[in-house]
C-alpha cells in the first residue's frame, strides 16, 4: 500500500514521512518547504490559527499542482501534506517535498508549489490575534482577486 502523495490532515505532520514518499535511487536532491505558524506579523501577535479546507477539492488541487510540476520539471517527484484545524505557534501547516536528479529543479519546483498553493488550493486561515480574529484572504498580497481568476488553468 502506498501513501497518497497529496493529503489534508488534522494531526501534526511528520516531515520524515513526507520526505520518504519522494525518496528514489535516481534522486540526488530533495528539497522540503515547511510553512510554520509565525508569532508576529507586521507588529501583530498571533496566539493561534485555525485552518479550514474544502477537503476533497483541496486534495484535487494539490494533485493538479503535482501534474503541473511533472510537466514543467520532468523526472521530479513531489508530495504535499497540509494540516487543518487548530495550530499553535511554530506548528507546521504545510510540508512540500520534492526529489529530483539535480538540485536546481528541486528548488524551483518546490517554490512553484507553494506559490500555487496560495493561489488555487481551497484552504483558509483564521488568525486569532491577541486582540481579535480575522479570516486571512490572499496571502500573496495582491489585490483581492477578480471573479474567475485567470490563473486557474
Amino acid at each position, binding site marked *: 500500500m502506498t501513501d497518497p502523495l497529496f493529503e489534508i490532515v488534522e494531526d501534526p505532520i511528520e516531515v520524515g514521512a513526507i520526505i520518504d514518499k519522494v525518496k528514489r535511487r535516481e534522486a540526488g536532491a530533495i528539497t522540503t518547504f515547511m510553512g510554520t505558524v509565525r508569532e508576529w506579523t507586521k507588529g501583530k501577535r498571533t496566539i493561534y490559527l485555525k485552518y479550514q479546507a474544502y477537503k*476533497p*477539492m483541496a486534495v484535487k488541487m494539490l494533485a493538479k499542482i503535482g501534474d503541473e510540476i511533472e510537466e514543467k520539471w520532468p523526472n521530479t517527484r513531489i508530495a504535499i501534506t*497540509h494540516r487543518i484545524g487548530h495550530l499553535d505557534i511554530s506548528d507546521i501547516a*504545510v510540508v512540500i517535498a520534492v526529489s529530483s536528479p539535480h538540485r536546481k529543479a528541486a528548488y524551483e519546483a518546490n517554490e512553484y508549489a507553494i506559490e500555487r498553493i496560495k493561489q488555487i*488550493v481551497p484552504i*483558509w486561515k483564521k488568525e486569532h490575534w491577541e486582540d481579535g480574529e480575522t479570516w486571512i484572504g490572499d496571502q500573496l498580497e495582491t489585490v*483581492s*482577486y477578480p*471573479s474567475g481568476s485567470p490563473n486557474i488553468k
Partner: protein
Amino acid sequence: MMINILLFADLQEKVGKDRLELEADSLSIIDLKEKLKNEYGLLQLDDVMTAINEEYALESDIVQSGDTVAFIPPVSGG
C-alpha cells in the same frame, strides 16, 4: 431539483451555516450569486471564485440541479 451550495471561511460565518440548498433547475453562477447576495446580504460574493463539483468555474457557467457549488473566498493556505 436541488443545487447544493457550500460555504467557507467568512461566508460560512456570515450565513451561520456551512451549506445551503437551493430549489432550482439550472442557472448561471452570476445569477446564483445575485440571488444569494439579495437573500443573505453576501456582498463579498463579488470577490469569490466558484467551483462546480470541485472544479473552478466561470461566472457564465451553468449550474444544474444535483450539482455542488462551492464559493471559494481568497485562499490563504500554506
